[in-house]
């Protein structure tokens, strides 16, 4: 078996068992014996592993959500650690501001999405729960972010004035609406794939794998502006 595939399989197994220390040991040994570079580990081991785990969970109903959450945390931690060893400029696909809408204190979905985006080389700034539209926009401007992600678990925070809709109006008010894209997600959106339209957002996603695809797409659209 080739080295990459071997490390991928071993790392995936360790992560799947939520064994952080074993996962870290495998990455360390790949670096130590020089078989893979940090870049290769990021792109060919860490990122595909977490995407496969989520695929197993969503499509094949093999993994549980708690496991998914822990794995996404392991994955994000490994990414941060490897990123210390590479040229961040090359390995950074862009900055994403992520938070939970004002009046909403649920952070699990957002955290998973954040960890998975991070493991896919976006620099994620998680600004927590109960975030006002102004804070979303201030943080995006300060960090030169091109994407704002707003999570909500309840319908009134998902489509209310102080949620993503408020973020979109605040961007508009500051003349930034075409520069910064807004993406939404969370339980209510999963019940109605049209719901995101009521918020004025540019996209939505039902899970973290899709979130990576949507953010990739919006970044491309952005690049063409």
């Amino acid at each position, binding site marked *: 078996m080739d080295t990459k595939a071997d490390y991928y399989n071993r790392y995936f197994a360790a992560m799947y068992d939520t064994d952080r220390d074993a996962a870290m040991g495998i990455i360390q040994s790949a670096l130590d014996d020089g078989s893979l570079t940090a870049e290769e580990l990021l792109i060919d081991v860490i990122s595909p592993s977490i995407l496969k785990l989520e695929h197993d969970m969503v499509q094949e109903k093999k993994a549980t959500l708690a496991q998914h959450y822990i794995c996404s945390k392991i994955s994000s931690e490994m990414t941060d650690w490897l990123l210390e060893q590479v040229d961040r400029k090359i390995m950074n696909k862009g900055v994403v501001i992520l938070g939970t809408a004002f009046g909403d204190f649920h952070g699990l979905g957002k955290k998973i999405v954040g960890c998975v985006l991070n493991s896919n080389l976006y620099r994620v700034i998680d600004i927590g729960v109960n975030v006002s539209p102004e804070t979303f926009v201030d943080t995006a401007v300060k960090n030169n972010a091109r994407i704002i992600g707003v999570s909500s678990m309840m319908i*009134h925070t998902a*489509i209310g004035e102080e949620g993503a809709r408020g973020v979109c109006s605040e961007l508009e008010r500051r003349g930034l609406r075409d520069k910064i894209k807004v993406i939404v997600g969370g339980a209510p959106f999963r019940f109605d794939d049209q719901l995101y339209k009521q918020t004025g957002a540019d996209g939505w996603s039902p899970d973290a794998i899709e979130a990576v695809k949507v953010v990739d797409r919006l970044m491309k659209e952005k690049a063409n502006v």
Partner: protein
Amino acid sequence: MSSARQRFGDLMSGQLPDRVPVVCNLLEQGAKEMGMSIKDYYSKGENVAYGQIRLIEKYGHDVAWAFHYTASDAEMLGSKKSIFPDDGPPNVGHLIIKSIEDIHKLKIDSRIFNTKSHQELLKTIDILKTELGKEYPILSAVVGSYSMPAILMGIEKWMELLFTPQAGEAVNLLYEKCSQFVNLRCQALLEAGVDMIIYNNPLASAAFITADEFKKKALPWIHKDVQTTGTAGMVYFNGGGEINPMLPALVEHSGFGAFYINPMDDIREAKQIVNGKGLVAAPINDIKLLRFNEEEVKNEVERIISEGKEGGGFIFGTLVMPYGIPEHTIRSMINVAKQAGQY
């Protein structure tokens, strides 16, 4: 025409009722009826009772809710703050468990019944029993012990604890204490006179676990939760996640006699699995009701009823109706359901 109570009675004794019963989970909407903020509404049990009475008079559905909100379970265990929005359900604002030590310290005893949350709920139950009890079944709800830690320590901390080596004992202890709470609470609700308890177990749904894991880890706690009361009057509720994958184990081993599935669960499949060994309640996807026009409402309600009605044992329902659904939409949903549900 039967009363709502007879309708459910028929269903439970295996007979065909005059029509499919309609459960409509209107909660905060009662505050609107009473002309109050959601916070004021929930501050007194009588507000909720009269809110429910007005809702039934207005819309004509078949059950009255003697239930306030999920966060009140946490209040009964010492949570000092719930957050009341203007246009949605209250939320837990103070998590009472911050460490493993707090799990050890948590005491479950009859003091939970001295709390304002419980006392106000008793008032709601009492008024509803007196005013509507002859005609309507009175419903309440509990969160199953398998899901309860989420409102005591926050779901992220809970998931982390589940995967902390050496925390197994604390995890079991918290389940155990939650289950003691559920036993006490169900018993008190039934003694106070509620007819049915909606047993809400979202962390045991397919949104979180596999069917295998359900059998191994969730089912034993479901058994423990109903040790005191038994399962008469208990309805197993999906809590927002899909439960068809769990139904075979639930039907076979839980002793529950009614299963309230998710809008994403296939109704025909659920009826096939339950196979007459209990009732199936199937809800409309009520988040879509925020935007559906009359035609869309009609089609969706008729679809649900036509998939579930045959042979009886079927209830039409909703999940937790969002506050913003227009009144005319609620009306037409209920009217179409009554029409389409005739036997």
